[in-house]
């Protein structure tokens, strides 16, 4: 095989490798693994965790109240991923109040 043919073959091979590099690996026969943190049960779990955090806090940011209320409402209506997202945000704000900075707060119940 001449040098020119070898170089051409290498170029074609590299092109193919790049073209198929985005292909997904892993077994295509096994069923996908189930994520358990997108269910209504988890939504309730997050809501309970948030309750525990807000119950012991002296001041509750208004955004937390809004997010908590919205999250629970969405979960009740079956929009679990959106509800979980809002409840997580509320938890983050409760755990790290410096993220939102100074803002309106509401007294804990």
């Amino acid at each position: 095989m001449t040098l020119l043919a070898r170089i051409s073959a290498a170029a074609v091979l590299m092109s193919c490798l790049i073209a198929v590099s985005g292909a997904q690996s892993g077994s295509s026969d096994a069923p996908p693994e189930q994520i358990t943190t997108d269910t209504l049960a988890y939504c309730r779990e997050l809501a309970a965790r948030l309750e525990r955090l807000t119950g012991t806090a002296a001041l509750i940011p208004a955004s937390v109240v809004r997010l908590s209320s919205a999250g629970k409402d969405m979960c009740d209506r079956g929009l679990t991923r959106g509800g979980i997202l809002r409840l997580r945000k509320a938890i983050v704000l409760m755990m790290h109040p410096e993220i939102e900075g100074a803002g309106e707060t509401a007294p804990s119940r």
Partner: protein
Amino acid sequence: MALPAAPAAASRPDPRPPRARPRRRFGLLRSAAFRFAAIYAVLLSLSVTAAAGFVWWETAGRLNRQIEEAILTDAQALGDHWEVGGVLDVQNAIEDRLSQNVDDDAIYMLATPDFARLAGNLASWPAEVTQTGIQYEIRVERGGIRSLASMQRFDFPGGFHLLVGRDVTLRAQLTRLLSSALAWALVLVVAMASAGAVAVRSLFNRTLASVSATTAAISAGDFSRRVQVTGRGDEFDQLAEIINVMLDRIARLMDGVRQVSNAIAHDLRTPIARARARLEEAAVHAGTEDDLRAAIERATADLDAIVAVFQALLRIAEIEAGSRRAAFCVFDAAPVVAGVADLYDAVAEDRGLALVTSAPAALWIYGDRDMLQQAVANLVDNAVKFSPPGAVVRIDAARAAPGAPWTDIAVTDRGPGIPAADRPRAVERFFRGEAARNTPGAGLGLALVQAVAQLHGGALLLEDAAPGLRAVVRLPAAEAPAAGPPAPGTHAETASADGIPAGGASAFAPSPYGNVIRD
């Protein structure tokens, strides 16, 4: 009787003119134009492939590396929790992380030695994750939507297992998009490279076609053709100019050969015809044996002159071929000049001329002593032949200037000289100027002198002496040999007092033809 078989077709020459014969075609891989174009296409494709690979590595590859680093950092932090509080602490840490995972991309699982779930957001341990230190890509499903996750296994003391991962759906989409775009770009590049290769090959063929057509026309006999110069000043133009210079030189050489052939035929026809006429007349009209003998002697003299012309031509050809250069050595030219002057002293005196010589004690030259003697003798012979009575013929030999690399041996006469317009042609074979029409000679003397000068790396210069001619043989000067026994190749120990070789003065006897020196 059977007729002889017709000769085989392969032995008959092709009667068609050269241009009508089919051109020899090369196989594609043997074509230089194709190789040129293929190299261009391959290099372009490789360059773009390398660039695409770098882009992929910098984008998708960097994303992969970032995810892997995030997983390792996360696992390290959970390992710290294990060391602080064991299983319980790790469980709490995982629950905290999941509850704050706003991006919803984290995947954790803490399992017992039996791979039973203790914490995390995976329902079960993936069966394919069997080893630590390997980045696995596992298909996951959340809320009915399938995606891809990248995860690694870590083992804690006591046989507990930890799985840390990240959802890489977006990265996978980006990688697919990028790979697809790069692949199409490579296809486009290959297409463009192929088109470019065709263009390069066409340009190559077009450029070479000009050279090929010109050389084909020349080989068919049309010496007026020249390769076209485009004026761009590139390498092809340089090649074309060099070829054209070569063709000009070939044309001049062929013209010279043609002229010499014509001159030989013209100039020798007369003496041959004269000799024939004399012999014919003698055969018809010679009354006595003495008359016949005299006619034969005159014809013999004519034939001797013709032989001398041919010998001179051969001598010039031998000098121009350069074969004598192998015998070059360093020798003193001063005795050579003095010897020629002594030889022509008597001839000059007979013609009423004064011969004046000026030369240093030593004048070292690298070359051939005999050829230099011939050249100087030719010039002196011309000067004596063309000078009027009472004139002075000078022979001056010296360095062109103190420290100069040239040595000049100049012969000056007060004759009619050579007009400026004729001087460039005066060194051509058989050229006779108007002033030389009535003097004996074949017009070969200056041609021989120039051949000698050029063989030595020098030149013959013809200058106006106002009046007369000053002919200068300019040769590269040499350094005197080191003192002591003469080095091999030098002639100092063998030179005779007058510089004339042992063959005697007869080797340089002026010939009836004046400009022709017999060996």
